[in-house]
């Protein structure tokens, strides 16, 4: 261990930035994820003492990789006969370790595609990605997903065992499967981000951590797969959504609706970066689901207020999204946008079309949207009953307070 804060900080930074790189390069030597993890953890521990004595190396990632791989080679030699009996990572192309840096960039992709293999359950993909690609501890992952540490440990162990025993290949998928496999990876990153973003139990350190890990992964993927438009679009979507972070909660920690957010508190640097990425994604052929979602976020991000939003553009984008991937929540958002683009009558009619949608039947936002349009039309009595209906669908204290306020305003204005 070390008492030198500069060394501790350098090790923490290298953990954050280089973990995936070091682990992926070490796994190539060990061809066994558990052994690779063990050697990489050893290397980080060793860095704390060695760097205190000899100074922080110019390329911490290279130092850690060499240290972890030397340890691995040492262990493999010592336990040659023992390890020969264990299942190895299936990778028929590999004879020797990699050397040039171009190859090493691919190493991280191998690791990501293995963690997000479609033969693993989605929750296993998420857990493995956080553990192996991001280097989070099992305890941290368990806390983020609100399960016990032993449950999470069992989930990770089972997934690693399946990779070894079923011989999930440690490689970048063939061109024919690549688009679909990238889709699985993006779904995992999107899920990490969303879990951090819509935390049901309010803002806590772990949720912020998930958001920033998802952004790190998005940046890593954009660097490794620079020509894939959906990869670019997912990073854009996350940046544009996270740009609103400072305005999403009021001083008492209650969520603030997009309509009511103080747009002056939005992160303009993130918005600029996100908008540029959306444009880049849309230039490269037909828009995928992330490109459309990012484009919707981009339209909101460039509008100075809710009222001045380009609602017809939003309606058009939701039409594209729904044609590609029907979802009741997206259909509801489209109906709301329609109401702002073409007036409350049109909005009500669009909501009416969704009245039989079972998933929306007890969804408070559907009733809230109906209430808003009825209020604008001066149909106060119906508006009041829509808000009251919404109240019965939500237990969330912040949402209930907002609804009560709307009801009070209705009585005040025209009561």
């Amino acid at each position, binding site marked *: 261990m070390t008492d030198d804060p500069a060394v501790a900080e350098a090790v923490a930074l290298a953990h954050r930035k280089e973990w995936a790189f070091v682990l992926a390069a070490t796994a190539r030597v060990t061809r066994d994820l558990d052994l690779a993890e063990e050697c990489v953890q050893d290397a980080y521990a060793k860095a704390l003492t060695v760097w205190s004595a000899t100074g922080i190396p110019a390329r911490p990632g290279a130092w850690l990789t060499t240290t972890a791989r030397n340890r691995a080679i040492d262990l493999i030699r010592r336990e040659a006969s023992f390890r020969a009996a264990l299942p190895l990572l*299936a990778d*028929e192309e590999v004879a020797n370790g990699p050397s040039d840096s171009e190859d090493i960039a691919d190493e991280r992709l191998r690791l990501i595609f293995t963690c997000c*293999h479609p*033969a693993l359950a989605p929750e296993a993909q998420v857990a493995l990605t956080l553990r192996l690609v991001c280097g989070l501890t099992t305890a941290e992952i368990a806390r983020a997903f609100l399960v016990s540490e032993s449950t999470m440990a069992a989930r990770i162990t089972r997934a690693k065992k399946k990779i070894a*025993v*079923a*011989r*999930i*290949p440690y490689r970048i998928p063939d061109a024919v499967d690549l688009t679909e496999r990238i889709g699985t990876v993006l779904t995992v990153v999107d899920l990490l981000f969303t879990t951090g973003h819509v935390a049901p139990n309010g803002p806590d350190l772990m949720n912020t951590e998930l958001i920033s890990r998802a952004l790190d992964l998005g940046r890593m993927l954009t660097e490794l797969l620079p020509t894939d438009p959906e990869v670019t679009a997912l990073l854009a979507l996350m940046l544009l959504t996270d740009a609103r972070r400072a305005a999403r909660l009021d001083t008492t920690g209650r969520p603030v609706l997009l309509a009511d957010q103080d747009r002056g508190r939005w992160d303009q640097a993130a918005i600029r970066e996100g908008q540029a990425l959306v444009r880049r994604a849309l230039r490269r052929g037909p828009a995928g689901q992330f490109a459309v979602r990012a484009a919707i976020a981009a339209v909101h991000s460039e509008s100075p207020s809710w009222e001045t939003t380009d609602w017809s553009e939003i309606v058009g984008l939701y039409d594209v999204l729904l044609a590609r991937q029907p979802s009741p929540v997206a259909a509801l958002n489209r109906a709301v946008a329609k109401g702002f683009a073409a007036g409350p009558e049109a909005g009500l009619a669009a909501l009416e079309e969704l009245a039989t949608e079972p998933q929306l039947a007890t969804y408070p936002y559907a009733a809230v949207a109906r209430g808003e349009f009825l209020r604008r039309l001066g149909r106060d009595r119906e508006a009041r009953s829509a808000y009251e209906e919404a109240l019965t669908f939500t237990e969330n204290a912040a949402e209930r307070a907002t609804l009560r306020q709307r009801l009070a305003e209705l009585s005040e204005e025209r009561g």
Partner: protein
Amino acid sequence: MARYLLLIHDNEADYDAASAEVHRAHDEGHEAFAREHKDVIVGSGHLQRSSTATVVREDGQGGFLLTDGPYAETKEALGGYYIIDVATLDEALAVAKKLPYFGKVGDAAVEVRPMH
């Protein structure tokens, strides 16, 4: 290389209701599959109806208990298997997707299990 067992679970009722022409097309599908993958197929078998199965258990008193019918009564029953020898799960899955079930008779599911 590693061996995988492809367990074919299909719907017997759908198959029984299908025409002779469909049955013939299905058999030809298996022959074509076997020809196409002859380099990796190690073994295969076509099972009789699950209603002809007998399950053997111990009765707990030193003897055996026999049950008429399959081990698990489900809509989809184990109808056949292939054993293939390929390098990775991805290759095994690619072979499984070529089985003459998908888009043809009824709903089939193929379980791909690695073997020791």
